[in-house]
């Protein structure tokens, strides 16, 4: 275990996660699990018109999972639903800088959860 494994940006999001915690009266939420390790991420969104007005997350996971969750909420906030849906896991990982190769699977949660939350909205 070594904090040299992760870059500064990742460690910052890990220690100071943005948009973290439960959201009262969310318009939609989605929970996804990482089949590789059993970690879990939940995204909650509030929508105004076709824009993501507010977004929160909760994650039980490793450093990379928490950091990517935090990053995806920052990226999605204020975007239109269509734009937000286009955010890929790669975009999130790229925004954080580099992730160690064995940690790339951890970044798969974030955008998946967001997409799932937006899609559940359409079904309503």
């Amino acid at each position, binding site marked *: *275990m*070594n*904090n040299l*494994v*992760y870059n500064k940006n990742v*460690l910052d999001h*890990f*220690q100071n*996660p943005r948009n*973290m*915690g439960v959201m009262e009266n969310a318009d939609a939420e989605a*929970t996804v699990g990482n089949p*590789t*390790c*059993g*970690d*879990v*991420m*939940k995204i909650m969104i509030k929508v105004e018109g076709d824009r993501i007005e507010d977004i929160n997350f*909760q*994650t*039980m*996971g*490793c*450093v990379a*999972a*928490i950091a990517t969750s935090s990053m995806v909420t920052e990226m999605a906030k204020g975007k239109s639903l269509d734009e937000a849906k286009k955010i890929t896991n790669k975009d999130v990982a790229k925004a954080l800088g580099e992730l160690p190769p*064995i940690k790339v*699977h*951890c970044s798969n949660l974030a955008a998946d959860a967001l997409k799932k939350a937006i899609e559940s909205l359409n079904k309503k």
Partner: protein
Amino acid sequence: MSLSINMEKIYLDNAATTKVDERVLKAMQPFFLEKFGNASSQHSLGQEAEMALEESRDVIAKSIRAKSDEIFFTSSGTESNNWVIKGVGFENLASGKNHIITTKIEHDCILNSCRWMEKQGFEITYLDVDKEGFVNPSDVRNAISDKTLLVSVIHGNNEIGTIQDIETIGKICRDKGVYFHVDACQSYTKVPIDVRKQNLDLVTLNAHKINGPKGVGALYIREGVKISPLIHGGNQESKMRSGTENIHGIVGFAKAVKISSSGNIRKMAKLRDKLIREISKIPHSKLNGPEGDKRLCNNINFLFEAVEGEAVGAYLDINKICSSTGSACSSHNLKPSHVLKAIGVSPMNLNSSIRLSLSKDNTEKEIDYVIETLRNIIFKLRKVSPFKLKYDGKEK
């Protein structure tokens, strides 16, 4: 949780490896620049090396009540363990026996050797353990058949600290005429080992867990045990283990054994118990492995529900505390700990544990800081977690 920049690292990963003690380093030093001879050489430099080698062998032998010619130096605990499984297996194949008994909580070097042996046609039984990690000696007795060659059991477990009752298992094996091997890498100098009283046929030892150098190990082989060499070559170590002896490493190994003391064991056990007592107060935490004197004096392993061990370890590291996790999320193979699985930790909690392992050099002040820091970390990570835990009957 802040901390002054200058604070030194608190090293609590001594089950992985330890710092070389200064006295050990000093004992080793002459063997690099002055007494650098090859112990097989006939000149004075060679003889000096040979003497140092035999003196070291005596020290190791005495420490487990073996005879000197029953101690064979190797490159590591890993090599000694490989040697036992493969060397005993193949040497005795002609007798028609091909069955080896071990446990589900062994170090990977035993487990992977056994898996390889299965591919060579051997049969392996992997015994279950109870929820504290104890092997039931009567399970050993019941597993022994007329095909059984060897029983191999880890003495002190490297992850959860469980110390097995090797004396009882040793008696069973001796009565049944089956070889008994003990992997004592974690327990050596911390738990008494007496190869006569405990009926041990083979014992694996290494240096780097006891403030000695890395890359040095030994195997005790009781006189009369049938085992073939694993490493062939120039016939060193009574033709049993070839390769020019690692004299400086072996000298350091012996010095490390000499400086070990019961005072240090008591000191570590006291710090261990304080850590266990205080960490237990964190809600929804659970000690993995047993309490009291059946636990290695330097091992602490806790499960924290609803958080990920890798994240806890990273947070500790950020706070200058070196720990280890049995979490898949920090390892290269992404498989959770086979030991935690074997003691029945639920799949959902398999990646939620952290191991702290002490050395003689840790202080109470360090421990107090670790307890406080860990409490804050768990609190912080649980705030991020979507899992709701009940506190005083209420969800929070």
